[in-house]
């Protein structure tokens, strides 16, 4: 190996060591919180997300998938999403962004559940540039005791997948594949299906 190559490798390793020292062990997003002595609530209601993304479809889909996930994968008792919306309408809430204007106690009474799942949907997007194509979903999820407003659990979940290309033709092919996949997912009523699964698995993985 020549000196130039060796120097380059040492510089690369040095950079990684510095990176590790600066950020080592820092997870992406906030650390999960679990209330000591957490026990599974008897019934939970998954509330409509506080949607910070640009996707309206994404908010509806993420709420439905979260409810399904807790019911099917975790085996929890979950209030039907339609009933949650009906209950919220009684207290004049039609959007997840309005939830901070009222207390968990009132929301719990309206939807008939002792525990509430709040979702802050921060990203739900397809980015198709050809050279870089990204599908991502990121949400911060909290489980709150409705009667006391106490936080029982919180964690951030994310799912992201990229495809890249390094040539003009490659970019055209990767872009076409990304657009085709996006169309198929949307036509099938499951936008970002894998990324939402990844997000939910990450968000709830620390849940006892």
């Amino acid at each position, binding site marked *: 190996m020549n000196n130039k190559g060796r120097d380059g490798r040492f510089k690369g390793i040095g950079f*990684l060591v510095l*990176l*590790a020292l*600066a*950020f*080592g*062990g*820092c*997870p*992406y997003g906030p*650390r*999960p919180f679990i209330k000591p002595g957490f*026990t*599974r609530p008897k019934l939970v209601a998954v509330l409509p997300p506080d949607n910070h993304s640009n996707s309206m479809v994404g908010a509806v889909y993420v709420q439905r998938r979260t409810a399904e*996930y807790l019911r*099917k*994968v*975790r*085996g929890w008792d979950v209030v039907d999403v339609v009933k949650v919306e009906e209950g919220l309408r009684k207290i004049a809430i039609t959007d997840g962004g309005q939830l901070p204007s009222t207390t968990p106690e009132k929301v719990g009474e309206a939807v008939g559940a002792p525990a509430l799942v709040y979702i802050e949907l921060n990203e739900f997007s397809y980015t198709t540039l050809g050279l*870089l194509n*990204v*599908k*991502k979903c*990121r949400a911060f999820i909290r489980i709150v005791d409705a009667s006391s407003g106490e936080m029982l659990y919180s964690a951030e979940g*994310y*799912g*992201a*997948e*990229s495809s*890249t*290309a*390094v*040539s003009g*033709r*490659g970019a055209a*092919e990767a872009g076409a*594949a990304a657009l*085709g*996949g996006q169309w198929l997912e949307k036509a099938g009523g499951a936008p970002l*299906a*894998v990324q939402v*699964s*990844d997000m939910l*698995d990450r968000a709830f*993985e*620390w*849940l*006892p």
Partner: protein
Amino acid sequence: MKRLVILISAMLAGAAAFSDDTGGTNSNFQFSPPPCPYPFFTPGRTDNKATGTYASMKMGDLKIQGGGIDLLVRPVSRRDYAYSIQVGYMMMQSGDFPSMGGGAAGKAGGDNFMTWDNGKWDLQMNNILGSLVGEYQAVHDPSIDVILLVGPNFTLGWGEMTPDYTKTGVLIWDTNGDGKFSKPTSAAKLKGIELSSYTVGAKAGIQLGVPLGPLELAPFAVLGSMLSGRGTFKMNSGYEEIPSASSSADLPRSNNLSLGLDIIVTPWGLSLGSVFQQVMAKKKADNADIILVTAGWHWVTHKPAGTAATEGNDENGGGAEKAGAAGRKSR
């Protein structure tokens, strides 16, 4: 942490013992995606991926094209365990594969014969590969992940090279001096060369995931070993009095230690190792005209609670509710 050190030491000792067994171990460093691409250990989750590929390569006079399909299924059986089964099939063919030209000469039934081709052979190669990898999540907390991998793999390849006589024909003559061809020209055609091979191997490795804020560092070490393999070469003369020649050879056992690293841009799910591999592949292929079209579909399913193996592994007997805490490892 103590447990982590013990595990890593055990892996390295195992790797060293493995390589001593057969003498030679090649090693290399690669900046590439890690061996476990879906590091999820949610009981009942199954990652499925089907990928179809069409490839065409033109380099000078040589043109090869083909396609294949690759299937991956990765069920998570417990909080710490998953296994992945991967099966792939690839077929490549070329109508213009360059040969040495000339062909074969010999004597059959009192006749001298000589065949030649036009330097262009038809080639068809098929490959099936399969692997089973068991994954054990030894350490999992927000600061670090350690995954150990082990499992067998195999490859099976077969194909045929056939001279293209359609343009040049075959020359046969007798030695009686009557100037007549004693055999029809088609009889002495070299039918082709059959190639086949198989390998059976195993691999064991370790993969780490260290979050660095918006990046994740994923170093890995994988020791791959080709435990058994055989290649067979068979020449079919196509001429009844010329026996087909066949020879086989065992492939030498070999080990390969791959040390690698990937940096993942977490918010985008972007593997810089994958980008680097793409750049290197493009550099290599700069003097070739390559078309590579890949279409894949990745889908995830979850088994309903209670049907996953979570409950059976819960030492506290608390069902799904307690299984997460029971199965979790931390430093």
